[in-house]
């Protein structure tokens, strides 16, 4: 069995007030540092939000944004390659549901050869094991360091 932690990826989560220009400032800072953003999503609540991003160098992104005064933390996520056929999303959701794994949130992006589903789950190791068991393909953390 492969080491499951190989598939645990560090997402950066950045606190952002709902003020114009905050998202642009984050993107600009990462661009200057030549940090590539694979995917991001914004979650909003009453007056504030969290910007979630998958980048090619999370450590440096964390440092850069912290130096700028942003509040940043790492969040463990997994990334599943989606089969390019109908029902791909349903299948992943079913596998995790059957295993009793909760999906807290997810977002997707289209990678080089396939669409990728980023998942924040409550039991990462269990999720990884079940997805591999069912022949699914996960992105390795080595892509994001």
């Amino acid at each position, binding site marked *: 069995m492969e080491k499951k932690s190989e598939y645990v990826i560090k997402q950066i989560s950045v*606190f952002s007030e709902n003020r114009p220009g905050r998202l642009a400032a984050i993107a600009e800072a990462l661009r200057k540092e030549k940090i590539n953003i694979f995917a991001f999503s914004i979650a909003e609540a*009453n*007056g504030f939000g*969290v910007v979630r991003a998958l980048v090619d160098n999370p450590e440096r992104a964390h440092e850069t944004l912290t130096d700028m*005064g942003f509040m940043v933390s790492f969040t463990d996520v997994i990334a599943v390659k989606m089969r390019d056929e109908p029902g791909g999303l349903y299948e992943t959701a079913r596998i995790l549901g059957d295993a009793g794994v909760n999906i*807290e949130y997810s977002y997707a992006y289209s990678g080089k050869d396939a669409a990728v589903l980023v998942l924040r789950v409550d039991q990462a190791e269990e999720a990884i094991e079940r997805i591999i068991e069912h022949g699914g393909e996960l992105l390795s953390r080595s892509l994001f360091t």
Partner: protein
Amino acid sequence: MFWNNHMETLSGAELAALQLKRLQWTVRQAEKVPFYRAQLREAGVGADDIRSIDDAVHLPFTRKQDLREGYPFGFFAVPLKQVVRIHTTSGTTGKPTVVGYTRQDLENWADLMARDLTMVGLTDDDVFQNALGYGLFTGGLGFHYGAEKIGMTVVPSATGNTKRQIEMIEDFGVTAINSTPSYGMRLAEVAEEMGAELDSLNVGIFGAEPWSDNMRKELEERLGITAYDSYGMSEMYGPGAAFECEERNGLHFWHDSYFLEIIDPETGEVLGPGERGELVVTPLVKEAMPLIRYRTGDITMLMEDRCPCGRGQKIARIMGRSDDMLVIRGVNVFPSQIEHVLLSLPEVGEQFMVYIDRKHHLDEMRIEVEINRECFSGELKDLARLQAHVAGALRETLGLRTSVTLVEPGSLPRFEGKAKRVIDRRGEVW
């Protein structure tokens, strides 16, 4: 330890009778002042109408502004010949307020101060460094005579030359120090720089400006003392009108010399024990300058519980100024209450901003607080939980629903000197 056991523990009917007798005397004394003669005539009350202490409520208030308008000697009830000392309070604007003392006033004041110092355990074995300004300010001389009265060895160091102050503490074996809390912090700083241990020091007395419990802790740790809060103002002779006992849970206000009321600063209505409002003081033994229902502008409350030390009425430590009070949907709110709540929550910083708007004829209060960097988990649900937690804590203390906005650490304005944390936009016309 008691200086005047009988007076300090007087209670019930005996206290009420004494207060009544002295209130009647005070009103009679005030009637010698043209301002009060006019005021009392207008209110339709005189000394003879005061038949119980509860009748005080019929007397008119005296405001700081009234005293200013009496400059210089307009509030003296005795000829200048009988006035043996004058102090003034520096007004931030315009003329100062002048206060006068007869020989008996100075005697009364020193006696109250002797009670204060004895109450915190000081005796003629102590060496007392009085690091408050001497001169027109009441702080220096007020403590000085009380300390001498109980026989302490007094070092009238006044303020300034902090290095020399530290040397005196060490060389003279000073056991108790009196200063403003901010000067106390300065003393700690300089002592640390000098590597002075201040071994002899046991007691610190601080007053003349508001200070927090956090500051108390810091002063105690850095100076190696037990710190006590003192309260007073020149209109009540000076410092020493109220003082903490060894319980350090509220300040005993000398009930034989001052009659206290707490009022709603908006309506003037008298509030009960445990209710926060403006302190109104009627001194009961002042000869040269009697005052009736003087509005101090200080916010506090009468404490309900009897103190284990056996003395009488206590007030809570001063919580702010009535000028800072906000009325939100009919509820009185003080910015210091918000600060207090935030200080008790480690997840947020102590900086805050308050925005008040009126939407659909309803006041809306929104409070911005900074999240503590270490408490950011990256999860939106944790932020929402924190927001609800802060709003809940505020609601519990203020008795008011507020909306809380979480902002980035370091993003709120920092203030030097007087903070402008409240933006009240209700008066604005759109």
